[in-house]
């Protein structure tokens, strides 16, 4: 029967545990506590050395150590706020009446920026030399798996109309992207231009606007609102015609 020689520090830990009334513990707990102790003490002494140097002292003083301990305790080992502060906070919070419940159906969730239901990535296209880069935001809600690019452009435009963007009533029907004057003339083709609020004008219908006229609206019942993020859409010459532009985009995406 060999008697394992337990180092002195470990014996100290064991006696601390006995003092606190802990009788049963796994043997690895001693190692864990020892490690913690070493790390903590080293940390404190390091900080104390920094403070001593700052005060131009040669050796670490009791005050330095005290300051180091206090700094660490404030940062790491916080305790819950005292009861009177909690009561005060509670009193303030409980004064407002319970809000009425809106009668709409579906999931009742907080505003979108507090939810985790918006898209958390965006696709960036490969850099092709002659074509423009298009950024598409995919609005697949929480379902990350649906990366059908061709579909996204449907959704892109569809969602644009669905997202409550201003419509000009004069020309209903099809969609054309309005070129902002003055922003394009000096810009090279390979650069992207982001327009924060695209103004959508509906002009008279062309056959090419087929995908647009029937906007496919994202079903939003399960996951809440779909589109709040601004659209970044490349704008190019309107003269090239709507159909061709869309075809080009499709070509790029494939």
């Amino acid at each position, binding site marked *: 029967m060999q008697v394992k020689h337990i180092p002195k520090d470990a014996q100290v830990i064991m006696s601390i545990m006995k003092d606190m009334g802990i009788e049963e513990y796994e043997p690895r707990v001693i190692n864990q506590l020892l490690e913690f102790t070493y790390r903590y003490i080293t940390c404190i002494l390091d900080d104390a050395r920094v403070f001593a140097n700052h005060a131009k002292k040669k050796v670490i003083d009791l005050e330095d150590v005290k300051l180091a301990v206090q700094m660490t305790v404030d940062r790491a080992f916080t305790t819950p706020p005292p*009861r009177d502060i909690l009561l005060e906070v509670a009193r303030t919070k409980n004064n407002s009446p319970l809000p009425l419940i809106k009668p709409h159906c579906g999931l009742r969730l907080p505003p979108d920026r507090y939810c985790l239901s918006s898209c958390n990535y965006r696709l960036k296209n490969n850099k092709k030399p002659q074509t423009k880069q298009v950024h598409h935001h995919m609005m697949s809600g929480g379902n990350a798996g649906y990366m059908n690019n061709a579909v996204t452009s449907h959704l892109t435009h569809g969602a644009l109309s669905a997202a409550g963007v201003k419509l000009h009533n004069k020309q209903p029907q099809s969609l054309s992207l309005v070129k902002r004057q003055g922003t394009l003339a000096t810009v090279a083709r390979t650069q992207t231009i982001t327009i924060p609020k695209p103004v959508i004008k509906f002009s008279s219908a062309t056959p090419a606007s087929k995908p647009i006229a029937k906007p496919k609206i994202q079903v939003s019942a399960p996951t809440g609102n779909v589109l709040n993020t601004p659209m970044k859409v490349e704008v190019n010459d309107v003269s090239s015609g709507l159909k061709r532009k869309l075809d080009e985009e499709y070509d790029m995406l494939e």
Partner: protein
Amino acid sequence: MGVARGWIGESLISCKMQSGVLDSVGNKLASDKSTLLAVLQLLRKYNLKNTEELLKREANLTDVGSTEEIPQTDSEVSSVLSAYKSEGDPEVYEGAYTELKRFVEGALDIYKHELGMILYPVFVHMYLELVYNGHEGQAIQLMERFGRDQEEYYQADLKRLSHVTKKDHMKGNELTDTFKSSEFIIRMSRDTLSILKRHLQEKKHSVVLNIIQEHLYFDMYEGVARNKQQIEATAGALVGEATRQDNKAKVYYGLPKEPDIQYLPVEEEDDAEGDGTDKPKKKKPKKDPLFSKKTKSDPNAPPVDRIPLPDLKDADKLEKVKALREASKRVTLGPETLPSICFYTLLNSAGVVTSAEVSEDSSLLAVGFADSFVKIWTLVPQKLRAMKSAEQLQDIDREADDVLVRMMDDRSAETSRILHGHNGPVYRVAFSPDRTLLLSCSEDTTVRLWSLQTWTCLVCYKGHIFPVWDVRFAPHGYYFATAGHDKTARLWATDQHQPLRILAGHFSDVDCIQFHPNSNYVATGSSDRTVRLWDCVTGNHVRLMTGHKAPVYSLCFSVEGRFLASAGADSRVLLWDLAHGHLLAELTGHKGPIHTLAFSRDGHILTSGSQDCSVKLWDFSRLAEEMVLEDVNVSHNPDIKNSDSYLLRSYGTKNSAVLHLHFTRRNVLLTVGIYEGS
């Protein structure tokens, strides 16, 4: 000084200071300058200029202009004023305590036990005074000599106190802060109180007198002094017992009338077909026998609009009908007909599984793990399906009756699913009543809402800055409540990113929380060994129930809402009557901490599951009957029943601690436990 003293007295009483301090200020004269400065600060705060001038003149503090001596914040002021500053000779304490003990033991038997209740708090405060004033040796000696004499259930707290031996240790220590700032409440009959007062007048022991005046609060009641058994029953909480004030408010413990769901579209097979399609189809309400009995309105039920509740959707109404049908088929339980029990054992899960929960219709089991996952199993042949993708959803017919079935993708059926997202052990999971949402709370201080249709996390609620121990959905949905380490419980709604109510008042962690069946009240159990009932509308506590001797881990309301069962680490189940907050019964028998309680669906049987690997069944219907027969009002405490006659059966398992109990709608008991192989 007469007028000024009166002013000071009034203003100070109104700002929650113990009036006893005023006596001590006067008595100690100018020896305690900081105390006087604190009083000055308080007067300044309340703009009592004349009084301030008078005090300054009387106490010769005219040179006060230096602000560094004056305590700045409110809590500092109160801490100085209620501090343990005493000029008592440290040697005197032991003698004073022995003297007090001798007095208590010499009193008449009827009064002895009630008088004995002051020994523990006096002892604690004596110890803390000695420590605060730097008399470490005497403090340790006092603890060693008299610590063992205190009651069993105080020993844990005393052990924690004994580690505090220097004044610096006291700062920030939760236990000492609690003792320092809150009074220990003792309920005493008028006679006992007068005996005590007379004795203290006679002896003029300043030490004990000061402590009693400053730190003890006597809630007097008329009537006979209580005997040992009655006192034992409600003793044990961290700061004493509940005052009559605590339990005065009216509690609407009844259930409101069920909303009328008779006018549902008649089911297809019963449609009167055939003739006369030109006749307008009369939507005859189906006179189902289930709905025919009218529930008379309960005077103790809350008005329906007391708290805003979500309306029932069609799907909810169908669910209710289904539940009622199942309820009609269920087995009525009683001492002769015990439930069948089905035990789900989680293997290889000791130290890994932290919580388990079965949904209301017993179709889903959710388990929370210590490595931050939540895993959901289906307990019925129907598998777990995910919602179809967006494009597929566009193709389904939205007007179809079974649109809720069609929107799920059959190809994605699985028997179990895992939810990732938390950063720490998941301590509790809760299903929403309609089973589309799941809540989980974790050590990472957040509460997450998951969708059980898309199997993703929807919202992460941040509010607690410390681990959250419990989360529960309200029986009507929409609201949920959390209990955390920061001594508060919070009431949330799923569409608010911040809590609606903060329920503060406990002195230690809030370990468990439960909604009342009418969703108007929330009960919390805490490590300060009390159970509190809170009103969701105001956020104030309406009942304070003491009696547990160890932290409370589980709460369960009875089916009709009048009674509350609580259980905890002290291995006992306590039953409370919410009408007045009285303790009704104490059920002992378990040998380990009890972590789960459940009432059967008809309310006849109460079950408890514990870490001693057993499930016990108690006869609650007989208990409730006997309760109704007694005439109970606010001041008359009912006799507390003892357990032996109420235990129906005890079922042991091989070595599986019981984690969760759930009665199905047909009154079959489902149990979830963790097998701990040696």
